[in-house]
């Protein structure tokens, strides 16, 4: 080894071992420097950089901008026109379109009714059917009246046409006013409100936010501790047909409970003249005693609560009334319903009270009506088939709009906060949500299947929520970027300082060796 050093004539004056060490040192410093710059820095950079997946921003913007243009409601209505009435379906269609564009000019191409001739083989529970009936003047009925009959059990309605209006245009007027101003009135109003981004007039914050699962909790709160039987199982069964019809809308799970010793937070005053306890209307807002009554289901899905309150004064045959109001029930917005139960017949002292089915059924009717309000079903027409159909169409639009709102918020957020990470899962959920939106629109276009399209829109909503609430998307997960250097200083400090000192020493060495070189020369 010394021989190789000796070959180097310029270093002859130095100790050969020293020079070897020096060269090795220089090589080491160089390698470490290379490692730090070439390997350490990229590793540091990549491990501390924030992952931001590319979101389909253009697609989201396009969808949310042109959502209305992409939805085409074309509701089929089957007409059954007897030969005694001089009117054709094509005439009816043009009359209806005219009336609709007058009432809702913004709905062109978005919401139309497709009149189809012939209702022979159509199941009125599946499709809208309008039957015309000619009522001639007879000896029994000198001046027959025009009339409408909307079935509460199906999607069928009947129009009774008299001689007075048995002319093309008048029949057309009659038909379009029945359809636009009665059967689809609330739906049209709601849809137009949703499109405008306003709350629908009927809503007033009553309707619960949409969820694909709800808990229906029926509770009996008893003021004292005397045990009570209630035949709730039989009564609840009455809800089943309605819940079955709503099965595409949401999944309802029912539970019941009885709680004793449930006092109100306020004492009531006894009104001698009326022989009853009087609840003021203003007391209803704080009627439910959240401090003492356990109403928590610990379930992720929202609960709709229905409470029957059984006051102790029932044992003394003293009823409870709400001041100025006939009914004993009230609805709590976005929460549920309450019914204050007054026993009709006096209770014998030692007997066990039981609420039998015949007593519970009217209460269940009240709760059903409240449930309809809380879910946002239109209040007209009576037929649940028509209402649920309307609800599906409204909810479809609401869900699509909300999903796109969510996605747009997400985009806006990622643009305004540059330090927030966008994990791959978020992107996946966004894409999934978009594909559900597309599928819902296709379903609508191809088959006008509102129920299936609504279910798809619910999926879109769920996925857009997931995208927004993705766990990894926490900006301040470990440290803000201003603190990044501070966090890594204990690691970078020692390494960095040693390296800098070594570099300095190397440079100084080089300098001095160059000087000595010059001297020797």
């Amino acid at each position, binding site marked *: 080894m010394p021989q190789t050093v000796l070959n180097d004539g310029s270093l002859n004056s130095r100790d050969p071992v020293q020079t070897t060490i020096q060269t090795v040192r220089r090589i080491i410093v160089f390698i470490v420097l290379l490692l730090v710059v070439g390997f350490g820095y990229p590793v540091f950079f990549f491990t501390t950089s924030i992952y931001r997946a590319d979101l389909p921003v253009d697609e989201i913007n396009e969808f949310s901008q042109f959502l209305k243009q992409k939805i085409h409601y074309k509701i089929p209505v089957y007409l059954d026109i007897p030969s005694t009435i001089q009117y054709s379906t094509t005439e009816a269609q043009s009359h209806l379109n005219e009336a609709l564009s007058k009432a809702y000019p913004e709905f062109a191409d978005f919401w139309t009714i497709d009149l189809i001739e012939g209702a022979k083989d159509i199941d009125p529970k599946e499709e809208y059917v309008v039957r015309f009936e000619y009522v001639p003047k007879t000896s029994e009925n000198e001046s027959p009246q025009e009339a409408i009959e909307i079935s509460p059990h199906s999607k069928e309605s009947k129009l009774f046409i008299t001689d007075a209006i048995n002319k093309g245009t008048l029949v057309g007027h009659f038909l379009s006013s029945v359809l636009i101003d009665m059967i689809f009135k609330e739906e049209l109003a709601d849809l137009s409100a949703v499109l405008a981004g306003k709350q629908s007039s009927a809503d007033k*914050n009553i309707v619960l936010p949409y969820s694909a699962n709800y808990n229906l909790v029926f509770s009996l709160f008893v003021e004292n501790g005397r045990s009570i039987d209630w035949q709730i199982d039989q009564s609840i069964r009455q809800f089943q047909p309605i819940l079955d019809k709503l099965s595409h809308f949401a999944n309802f799970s029912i539970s019941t409970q009885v709680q004793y010793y449930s006092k109100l937070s306020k004492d009531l005053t006894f009104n001698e003249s009326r022989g009853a306890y009087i609840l003021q209307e203003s007391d209803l807002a704080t009627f439910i005693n959240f401090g003492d009554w356990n109403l928590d289901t610990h379930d992720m899905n929202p609960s709709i609560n229905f409470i029957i309150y059984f006051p102790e004064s029932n044992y003394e045959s003293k009823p409870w009334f709400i001041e100025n109001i006939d009914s004993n*029930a009230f*609805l709590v917005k976005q929460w549920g319903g309450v019914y204050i139960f007054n026993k009709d017949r006096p209770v014998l002292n030692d007997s066990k009270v039981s609420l039998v089915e015949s007593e519970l059924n009217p209460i269940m009717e009240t709760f059903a009506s409240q449930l309809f309000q809380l879910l946002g079903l239109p209040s007209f027409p009576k037929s649940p088939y028509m209402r649920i159909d309307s609800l599906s169409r409204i909810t479809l639009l609401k869900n699509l709009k909300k999903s796109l709102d969510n996605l747009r918020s997400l985009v806006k957020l990622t643009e305004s906060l540059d330090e927030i990470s966008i994990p791959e899962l978020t992107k996946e959920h966004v894409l999934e949500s978009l594909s559900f939106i597309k599928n819902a629109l296709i379903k609508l276009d191809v088959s006008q299947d509102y129920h299936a399209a609504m279910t798809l829109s619910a999926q879109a909503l769920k996925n857009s929520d997931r995208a927004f609430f993705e766990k990894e998307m926490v900006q301040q997960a470990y440290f803000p970027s201003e603190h990044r250097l501070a966090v890594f200083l204990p690691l970078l400090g020692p390494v960095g300082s040693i390296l800098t000192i070594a570099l300095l020493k190397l440079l100084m060495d080089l300098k001095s060796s160059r000087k000595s070189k010059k001297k020797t020369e």
Partner: protein
Amino acid sequence: MLVIPVVIYILSLLTAIIADPNVVTTDEAETIISESRHTNNWAVLVSTSRFWFNYRHMANVLSLYRTVKRLGIPDSQIILMLSDDIACNARNAFPGTVFNNMDQALDLYGDSIEVDYRGYEVTVENFIRLLTDRWDPDHPRSKRLLTDENSNIFIYLTGHGGNEFLKFQDAEEIGSYDIADAFEQMHEKKRYNEIFFMIDTCQANTMYERFYSPNILAVGSSRLDESSYSHHSDMDIGVAVIDRFTYYTLDFLEKVDKDSKQTMDKLFDVYTYQNVHSNPGIRTDLFKRDVSKVLITDFLGNVQNVVVDDVEKDILYNANHDEKGEVLAQNESKPIVSYSTIQISFDSEDDSHVLTELSPEFQRLAGLLTLLFVLALWLTAKQA
């Protein structure tokens, strides 16, 4: 800037003279008070300190917990974050209690407090996750802030703060930008209708100055470079029991009922320099309503909106009967709830996953080989 509290004080005197709140009837009050449009109330109460000498921070947060609960917010809608190491601290002369006053009249710990995030769970990350609701799918409901666009949220923070930061348990800190950005995310996702943000720390007012999302009303206990002072010490307990700001807040709120029509500005009137010994700040520029028309119960209570309209009477009847009034048979056969027995078996252990599947012959062979290998090692080692 000392003028402000004085002005507020004079104004409050004036308003008290001009309009005695007791004279206003409820009907009038309802027309005066602007609508909040919320349907549910939530509260997030956080004490970020640990250890015995921070007794007062726990008393602070429990004061507000007591109030929101008394005013009707259900426990499922209160998120309480605190270290919870005071009531049962070895140094506590009165185990199981936390008092707000040396008269020891009000046990804030009580017998039914529900702490959602306890001890080392009180972290910046959890707080931010809570606000933005970014959790694992299996995070329990009771520990989540499941608000929507109709929710009013009351957020109370107490602990040791500084210029634009609040320390979490001596380990980390949250910056004012972090909270502001979290609120913006909540606003984007329509997670609130209005927020009432209250903070009792040193230099507390610096914490809300970065907010930029709408509909936030913010109150802080002290300005930049000011401390938030404690009210008094209890010699039996040996430490300061509560901070001045929160003491006077609780003092005021104890007189508020569930359905009170008391307004927010009356609460703010309590925050004088004489009371708090620092300059409390109130930020209203993001808030649309006039604070003199905002009810205390819009944020701290749970006054529910009720509807007493007539109800329909025949929905279920129609659903269960056909045109002729006959009962439809479909509902008779279906039981509502089918109780099924839950089967528990101890065999499930056998089904547990095996990392690699080996035939028993191979297992035996492998065991034998290992034994031989160990024996060989032992023998060679002995020779050496």
